[in-house]
């Protein structure tokens, strides 16, 4: 494969938990992303899945340098961009874009969609005429009627609003797009339209995607490689086909089992029962667990295959076969 476009090295981000209204004091930390390293190759789609609170969205926001990391860095094409002050970050901004979950909420309701979509270009000094010309062009590309550019967001359906969001992300000719649950708010038939559109655009503009979602079916479909996050750690990373067919980490296996299939089967029931037997109920609250002390394997409490070593030392992410990484002592 070609050169990595995005390099993430030893990235770590923790959020403080404070108590007290007038005199807040620190009572703990939630580790959202813990010592995470990976590359995203030019032109690929890296899928990222995990339960709620696993740090998926935080990871994306760190890569776009929307929030500063505590440690580690992110580089775009070899240049370190994390911790850059806004002015120095500015030239990189047009290369990095984002598509949001709620298409309507991510658009300014008081501006026409043309103004919404053209905003990034105007920020980079394009003239209003050029910018609007480009908006009309892009409306055609994403499958909207260029005649509708002067309407307001509420006049469009959810699927159309997501197309507008996509047009806005494309307007500055980005190289990398972070997609944060881009189809989970959409209806099934519209979901398929948007997923197909995203794939077409990737091919057409040689885009690189980080695709975050809860729905493993969708991630599996669109991603070349899949990364499984559990409480801020990468527990498994590999080619989607391989991760799906031969999951190595116990969490990945449990996660895959819990997914509901249209083909039927009751693996989800086994997964639910096992998780109940482990007294895993409190862990539905993933953030509470993430705030707890971290020693040994993060998945120890919920793991079915755990052994003594798992309690004392935390496993490193290691390559078990070319391109397939697992963070588990019992690996492979």
């Amino acid at each position, binding site marked *: 494969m070609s050169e990595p476009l995005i390099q993430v090295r030893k990235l770590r981000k923790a959020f403080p938990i404070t108590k007290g209204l007038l005199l807040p004091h620190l009572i703990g930390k939630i580790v959202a992303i813990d010592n995470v390293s990976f590359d995203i190759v030019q032109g690929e789609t890296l899928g990222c899945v995990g*339960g709620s609170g696993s740090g998926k969205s935080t990871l994306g926001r760190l890569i776009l340098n929307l929030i500063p990391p505590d440690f580690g860095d992110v580089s775009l094409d070899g240049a370190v961009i994390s911790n850059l002050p806004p002015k120095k970050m500015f030239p990189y901004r047009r290369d990095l874009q984002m598509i949001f979950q709620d298409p309507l909420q991510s658009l300014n309701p008081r501006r026409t969609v043309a103004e919404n979509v053209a905003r990034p270009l105007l920020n980079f000094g394009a003239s209003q005429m050029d910018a609007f010309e480009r908006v009309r062009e892009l409306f055609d590309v994403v499958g909207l009627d260029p005649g509708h550019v002067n309407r307001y967001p509420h006049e469009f359906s959810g699927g159309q609003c997501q197309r507008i969001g996509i047009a806005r992300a494309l307007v500055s000719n980005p190289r990398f797009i972070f997609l944060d649950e881009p189809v989970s708010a959409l209806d099934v038939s519209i979901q398929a339209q948007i997923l*197909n559109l995203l794939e077409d655009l990737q091919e057409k503009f040689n885009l690189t995607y980080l695709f975050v979602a809860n729905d493993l079916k969708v991630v599996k479909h669109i991603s070349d490689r899949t990364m499984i996050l559990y409480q801020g750690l990468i527990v498994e990373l590999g080619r989607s086909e391989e991760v799906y067919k031969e999951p190595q980490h116990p969490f990945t296996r449990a996660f895959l089992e819990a997914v509901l*299939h249209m083909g039927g089967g009751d693996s989800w029931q086994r997964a639910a029962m096992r998780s109940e037997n482990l007294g895993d*109920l409190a862990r*539905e609250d993933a953030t509470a667990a993430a705030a707890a002390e971290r020693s040994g394997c993060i998945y120890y409490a919920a793991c079915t295959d755990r052994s003594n070593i798992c309690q004392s030392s935390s496993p490193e992410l290691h390559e078990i076969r070319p391109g397939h990484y697992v963070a588990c002592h019992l690996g492979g």
Partner: protein
Amino acid sequence: MLPMRNEPLGQEARAGNSSLSPSRTTEAPVLAVQNLRTYFFTPSGVVKAVDDVSFNVYRDDILAIVGESGSGKSVTALSTMKLVPVPPGRYVSGEVWMDEVNILSLSDRRLQEVRGARISMIFQNPRAALNPSFTLLRQLTETIRHHDRSFSRQEVETRALDLLREVGVTDPAQMGASYPHQVSSGMCQRVGLALSMACNPELLIADEPTTMLDAGVQAKILLTLKRAHSERHLPIMLITHDFGVVRALAKRIIVMYAGMIQEEGPAEAIITNPQHPYTKALILSVPNPVNPVRRLFQIAGQPPDLSHLPAGCSFADRCGAVMEMCRNEKPGFYRSPTGSNVRCHLFASSSEVRQ
């Protein structure tokens, strides 16, 4: 336990049993919806959200109503409890029978004896369904006391704790003392389920109960629902757009589009062998990890505007098998070879089921 429960309500008692559907004769349904039309009267026209919908829910049933947004599935569910805001909504025609009572004819006071007590509901956003300023236990005891004042304080609390235990809360006393914002969404949904079962309802309506939860939690909530169904013999009407959830729970399916039932039948038959072009397209457009395709099947276009429905079949514009007559004539409801009932001209040679 709950007064008024099984007493016939004199004036609202059913006049006759004129329109029994064939299947109804074998077993009395818990809920019978007949020719329900719920329209919304808006400045831009009449929105036919539910247009002539009839179905039954039986004692041992998990009936899934599947559809996309705007298909009328939620309005159907709300109509069965007479919860649609009037105006702008109006029940243009139809009846919702529960035993000898037509729910749509009940007064607001009488409705209070049905809602929560005989039919209860759990919602998509479990946290929003709870009151943020009361503890979880307080909300449960309040509900129990509201419907039955004969219990002592102590009895009510014991019942509330039992309910929490039943929905899988391992430490009810401690959990009950928490406020909604202190617990996870999965836990909120469990409490929502406990609330809905507080008065031993005869029917549970679950409106997208797991849509906002992640896969692991979803599986556990569905298992809890399944247990409630089998242990309490509680019929469930499941409103969802997710065929995975349908496959996991449902025994029968109703597929809705543009306010009408397009296909109904046994869950297994419809998922493995859908007959209506819309059902087929809907199932095909979900990514299938076991049998991956390079490109997803997509249904072209948008769902129709419910205030300006086409003269013929409402799916005609997006249908791959559209014929000339589909654009001019409304299709009837026919029996398909798999045993499902389909609203489609393609099956016109089969026997018609009902209007």
